[in-house]
C-alpha cells in the first residue's frame, strides 16, 4: 500500500512540474551545437535565465558574443558552456572557429 501511495504522489509532483514547465520557458535551456548549427538558433528567455551550450560535433566550436561581452573557451566534443543573462535585450553570438554559425538569445 505504501509503495502505491508514494507512486501516486510522485506522479502528482511530476504532473505539477510538467504543467509549470509548459507555461513558462525552461529555467535552464540548452542550445545544442550539432552539424555546425546552433539549435535552437533563436532562443527567448526571461532575465536571470542561464543558458547552456553543448557541443555534439566531432570538431570544436565556441560561443562568442558579437558585442564582445562574453566568449567561451574552445568547446571540444561534449564540452559545455553556460551563461546567465540578466539584462533584457538581444544578444547575437557566433562560433569563433566557424563564423558562419550564428545564433541569437532574446531576453525579455
Amino acid at each position, binding site marked *: 500500500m505504501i509503495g502505491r501511495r508514494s507512486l501516486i504522489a510522485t506522479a502528482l509532483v511530476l504532473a505539477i512540474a510538467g504543467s509549470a514547465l509548459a507555461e513558462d520557458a525552461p529555467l535552464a535551456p540548452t542550445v545544442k551545437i550539432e*552539424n*555546425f*548549427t546552433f539549435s535552437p538558433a533563436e532562443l527567448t528567455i526571461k532575465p536571470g535565465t542561464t543558458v547552456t551550450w553543448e557541443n555534439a*560535433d*566531432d*570538431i*570544436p566550436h*565556441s560561443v*562568442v558574443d*558579437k558585442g564582445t561581452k562574453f566568449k567561451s*573557451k*574552445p568547446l*571540444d*566534443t561534449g564540452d559545455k558552456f553556460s551563461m546567465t543573462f540578466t539584462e533584457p535585450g538581444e544578444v*547575437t*553570438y*557566433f562560433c*569563433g*572557429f*566557424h*563564423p*558562419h*554559425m*550564428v545564433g541569437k538569445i532574446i531576453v525579455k
Partner: protein
Amino acid sequence: MSHHDDDQGGNGLTRRHALECMIWAGTGVLWTLAGGVPVSRGFLGSAQAAEASGFSFLQISDSHIGFNKPANPHADDTLKAAIGKVKAMPGKPAFMLHTGDITHLSKPEQFDTATQMIGEAGLDVHYVPGEHDLVDEGSGKAYLDRYGKNAKGAGWYSFDQAGVHFVGLVNVVGMKPGGMGSLGAEQLAWLADDLKAQADSTPIVVFAHIPLYALYPEWGWGTDDGDQALTLLKRFGSVTVLNGHIHQLMQKVEGNVSFYTARSTAFPQPAPGTAPSPGPMVVPSEKLRGLLGVRNVLFTPGKALLAVTDSSLEGV
C-alpha cells in the same frame, strides 16, 4: 564538384573537366599547365630529372595534432607518415609550407609535438595559422611566439626564393559573425605595399589557410575580403594560391591565378554539399590514408604555371 569559372579558352570546360577528374583520381602524376593546357609529364620520378635550374617546395596542411575522434584517432601517426613521405621524396625541396591548423586546440604540448614531428623532415618550414592555432588564452600568442618571429600583425610575411615571391597571409583573425575568412584592412594595406616592389613578371605564390575565393560559402569556405587581395594580384603574369582548411583537393584557374587546396594529414572532410556539415568525415580505416596527403610544387624558370603534384599517404 565543379566550382570553376571559365577561363579564356573556348573549350575551357572540357579541358577543365578532364583536369579535374584526373586530379581527383591521380596521385603521383605530374601535371604541367602550359598556357592553360595541362600536359602529363609522367610519374614522380621524372619531376626531379626535370629542370635543374628551378626548385621545388612542399606543402602540408591541417595536421590537427591533438585530434583523436573517430575520423582519425591517431592524427600524430598520420603526420608522422606524411613526414616519412616527405623524407623519401627524390631531390631536396627548398623548403616546406604548412598552411595552418597545425594543432587542434592551440595547446602548448600540441604545438611542441607538431614542431618536433615536422622538424624531422630537416627542412625550413614557413607556417601560416589556421583558426585552430589561435584559440589559446592569448588569442594567438602561443602561435606567434613559436612561428611569428619574422611576421607582421597576426602573422603575415613574405620572402623570396630564387626569383619567386612568396606571401603568407592570415585569414583566420577578425572573422565577422555570419562571415567567412577575413584578411582585414591592415593586412591588405601591407599586401599592397609588399607587392609594389615586385615586377609584373615576378612569379607570386600566396599561401593562406582558408581559400581566398568563395569556394563554398554555405560552409564558410571562402574569405570575405579575398577579392581585394586578388585584385592586387591581377597584374602579375603568374600567381599560385595554395591553401588548406577544406581537407581535400580542389583546383580552379581564373586568368593568371591558379588556386589549389590541399589535403590534410589528419582527416578528410566531405565534398561541398555532400553531407549535413563540413565536419570530419569518417571512412573505413583502410581508406583513410588514401584521402590524406602531401604536395610537391615545382617551379621552372620561364614557365608561368607551377607544376603541382599531390601524393596520398596510401601505403605509407
